[in-house]
């Protein structure tokens, strides 16, 4: 990351926002990956 943002850790309220943003993106992505793995295993089992 750029030097500006890496000089000080994020404040507690920002940490909550960052965690929320990760969940916001991570949950749908985890669903997509789960479905992908489920389908991909058919190559070996189907």
């Amino acid at each position, binding site marked *: 990351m*750029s030097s500006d943002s890496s000089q000080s850790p994020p404040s507690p309220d920002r940490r909550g*926002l960052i965690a929320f943003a990760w969940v916001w993106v991570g949950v*749908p992505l985890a669903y*997509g990956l789960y*479905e*992908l793995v489920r*389908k991909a295993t058919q190559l070996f*089992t*189907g």
Partner: protein
Amino acid sequence: MFKPPLESALGLSGTQSALPFQLAIVMLGLSAAFGGTLVERNGPRWAMTVALICFSSGFLLSALGAATEQYWLIVLGYGFVGGIGLGIGYISPVSTLIKWFPDRPGMATGIAIMGFGGGALIASPWSAQMLESFGADNSGIALAFLVHGLSYAVFMLLGVVLVRVPNSAPEARGTARQAPAGPQVSANQAIRTPQFWCLWIVLCMNVTAGIGILEKAAPMITDFFADSSTPVSVTAAAGFVALLSAANMAGRIGWSSTSDLIGRKNIYRVYLGVGAVMYALIALFGDSSKPLFVLCALVILSFYGGGFATIPAYLKDLFGTYQVGAIHGRLLTAWSTAGVLGPLIVNWIADRQEEAGRHGASLYGLSFVIMIGLLVVGFVANELVRPVDPRHHIPAPKEADRVQRQQSESA
């Protein structure tokens, strides 16, 4: 996902039902090419707002079209309006992330472009489930379009609210105003350089080679092993296609990040050179070994994804961050060209070979030889890339003014 239900619900032919999706890809390329300069000028928040409005309203228009059985509204909504949202949304995070990670541009662009692949990964099963729940008639499709439009608006809104370019404004640092290091070239000037057109050829050839596998992945693996003792079933072929998607996505972040370590020119040597070797291995030995066929196809697809993700970082190395989003947008016309060229080559040759009475792996032999030739052309174009002549660079104060203006707008 929506193509077969649209055909049965609205009584469309295969060609008609493909129209909104083809138009969306064309509009993606055009809006990225022509809107790139606006994205650079107005900043990522403005760009993401435009992307949100276009993408969501495209779905809402399509919902109206499906509900009233007016197909032209679906073409206009999903294809035209939604396609503009796709193009602006595709390029807007790229230059922003490059600015956040100036020392790791490959990783930055890998994250941005992987998002596009990740979106397809989520949307595909989600849309299928929705159609299953709502029904595949016109009111079910309309409801699915409506839910898509509203959900995307909510999800993209968080991106709009949070996005910002790094705060390196001179007032914040208390330092003198500085332009970014390295050469800086405007988008209008970039397209006048041989470097831009070399990279255009590199991207076009690399994408065409990937499409060479992607376009007919399921029938290809079935045909290759049709006469073997272990033929590939329809469900196994679907698993193979899913595995290719995973390789495509992993290649975007993995290879693009690797380019930060070994250099952009070297990574494209790998994509194009090793890609050609992989095609040769499939052509020569693919039908004798299933693991070899699958492995080579996965490597080719990871290079396909890697090629998409690394190109903005390559552009940044050559032309700087000044208008890298706009230059990237213009380069995406190579994608549109490859999107036509790749399927055309593979389908046309497979059809001719079938007419000639061939079957199995021999349906694809000639296509693979052509793909190897195209990859060699791309390899040579990559070798011809040199640093941009200083006469194309912009004066430093102009760039510093632009950076300062954008930061104050997005802060």
